[in-house]
């Protein structure tokens, strides 16, 4: 990760709010291009879905045994025989109205299904990040403190192992070890059986706190632990690697050496400068992690029977319910773009050097 070159241009005259290189202009530039990118994502996802062989109307109506009249009716209803561009605009229109389509495998509007299942995955992902990032940081910093030592090698191997291990296998092994052999944790579901707990947001930990239901809180965390740990391995490993190289970069930067030479207090150096300059790549990293976490979530959700969007996505894909796949891909893409936008803006705010790009 290297930082952009400092700008070679100078601003003539007085600074205006929208002078080149100003924060406002950068943000505006990024935001202005956003709709184009989003539109592009929608287009790609739409095209990919249309490229899939098979007739969704046929599948919906029951496959080969379907009555051709029914199939024809469905095709007309869904506009499948219209030109591609018209279909695309129709889809776009639906999207803008918040209609993500109808999932035939779930017999419900896609929006409803996503709303029902997303909180579980969000909770899992957040927990994984909360566990993985601190561990990754600890590993990475420890590594960076003594580069080339045995500790460094071990930490690096752990980190690389973490990004190479097949999640499914890891999950099953953890489930076997901690769920069966030791019996310390449950290995399926989010709540104990026959629970009468009424969720509010769908994030059970939060809901339990809101309702001051402490047994439920404990139960939710207990169920969350193993899946979250399994999912946390990859982000921990990635963060460890980046933390290591970031802190190495920072520790050997000339300006830190220079500051020290000038007698600036070490705590200031390390605390402020090191953190600030190491944190920036980590923000970018978060954006990059999200797609991998989603994929990881699919596998973790299968192993631990976690009722989230990941597992549901796979089921939809295998059931040829492509509307769902389309919608989720779209959401992920949008999320990614927004995250990167936030990261870019934060970058621009925190590091003036990056404003000229």
């Amino acid at each position, binding site marked *: 990760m290297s930082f952009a070159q400092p700008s070679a241009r100078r601003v003539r005259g007085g600074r205006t709010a929208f002078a080149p290189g100003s924060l406002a202009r950068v943000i505006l530039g990024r935001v202005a291009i956003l709709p184009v990118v989003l539109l592009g994502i929608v287009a790609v996802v739409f095209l990919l879905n249309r490229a899939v062989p098979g007739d969704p109307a046929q599948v919906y109506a029951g496959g080969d045994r379907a009555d051709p009249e029914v199939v024809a009716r469905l095709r007309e209803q869904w506009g499948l025989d219209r030109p591609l561009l018209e279909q695309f605009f129709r889809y776009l229109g639906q999207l803008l109205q918040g209609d993500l389509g109808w999932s035939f495998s779930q017999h419900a509007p896609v929006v409803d299904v996503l709303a029902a299942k997303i909180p579980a995955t969000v909770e899992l992902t957040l927990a994984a990040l909360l566990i993985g990032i601190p561990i990754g940081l600890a590993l990475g910093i420890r590594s960076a403190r003594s580069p080339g030592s045995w500790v460094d090698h071990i930490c690096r191997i752990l980190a*690389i192992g973490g990004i190479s291990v097949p999640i499914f296998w890891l999950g099953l092994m953890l489930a076997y070890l901690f769920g069966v052999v030791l019996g310390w944790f449950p290995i399926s579901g989010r709540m104990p059986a026959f629970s009468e707990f009424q969720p509010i947001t769908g994030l059970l930990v939060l809901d339990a706190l809101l309702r001051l239901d402490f047994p439920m809180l404990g139960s939710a965390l207990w169920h969350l632990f193993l899946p979250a740990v399994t999912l946390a391995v990859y982000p921990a490993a990635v963060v460890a690697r980046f933390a290591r190289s970031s802190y190495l970069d920072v520790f050997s930067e000339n300006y830190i050496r220079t500051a020290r030479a000038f007698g600036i207090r070490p705590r200031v150096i390390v605390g402020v400068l090191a953190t600030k300059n190491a944190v920036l790549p980590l923000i970018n990293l978060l954006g990059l992690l999200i797609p991998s976490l989603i994929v990881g979530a699919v596998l973790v959700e299968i192993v631990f029977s976690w009722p989230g969007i990941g597992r549901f996505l796979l089921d939809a894909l295998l059931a040829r319910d492509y509307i769902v796949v389309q919608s989720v891909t779209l959401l992920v*893409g949008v999320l990614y773009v927004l995250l990167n936008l936030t990261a870019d803006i934060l970058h621009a705010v925190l590091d003036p050097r990056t404003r000229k790009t």
Partner: protein
Amino acid sequence: MNLTQNDFVRRLLTNRLSGFGFVLLLAIILAVVFGPLIWTVDPTAQNLAERIAPPSAAHPLGTDSLGRDVLSRILYGGRTTLLITFTAVLLSGIIGAAIGLIAGYFGGAIDAVLMRINDVLLALPFLLLALMISVALGPGVVNTAIALTIPAIPRDARLVRAAVLSVKQGDYVFAARASGVRPRRIITHHVLRNISSGVLMVMSVGVAYSLLAVAGLGFLGLGVQPPAAEWGAMLTDGRMYIISNPVVVLVPGLAIMLTALAANLVGDAFRDAFDVSV
């Protein structure tokens, strides 16, 4: 990036960890290429009476759900899996580099359009995109390779473009003009030297990424069709026996993990060797 050739090689080899990575990757590739010539058991020979057997003299890694020799299937499967992986990485590297070069060199509108398309493709998760393409194309070795190539292109394109831009903005052009040499030739020369470092690193990491993706696709039943051996499919096969005979799922899992590990180590090695500040 002013390292000499010797510097680079020296840095590459003195790092113990990266040395290990190179050795491991080499060992895996050799095993996969030459192994089947030494261990000549037929990977498709079924023996239902001896299925899910633990390791023995005749079958050093046991047998799978159809009584086929796991060692042989790992070796042949490795050929398939690694062939798909390396092809995808190479192809995406070439295509991505081409796009990056064009975008970086010409700049302006071409750059803007290409990079926006790039951003769009980058926004979609790698595996998800590979999944959808795989479903659209169907199973098979060629189709799987294509499904893994396309999502990887934007990453390589972006890298190459950045390298081109850094060269353009750097001192080379100025120096070239000052000494009367045509900028285009200088740019090409230095760009190629520059991107080689980044590309090698990204390709190594790309190997790990693609490998896990091939395994993932095979795991979901979308990769290669049976009875062809392939590490991801073997993982699926063995997954049901994870308690009764974990060797069947352990072996392909380890194969995948070790190869990904080696590829990552190699990628790290390239990055470290070119990165002056380490």
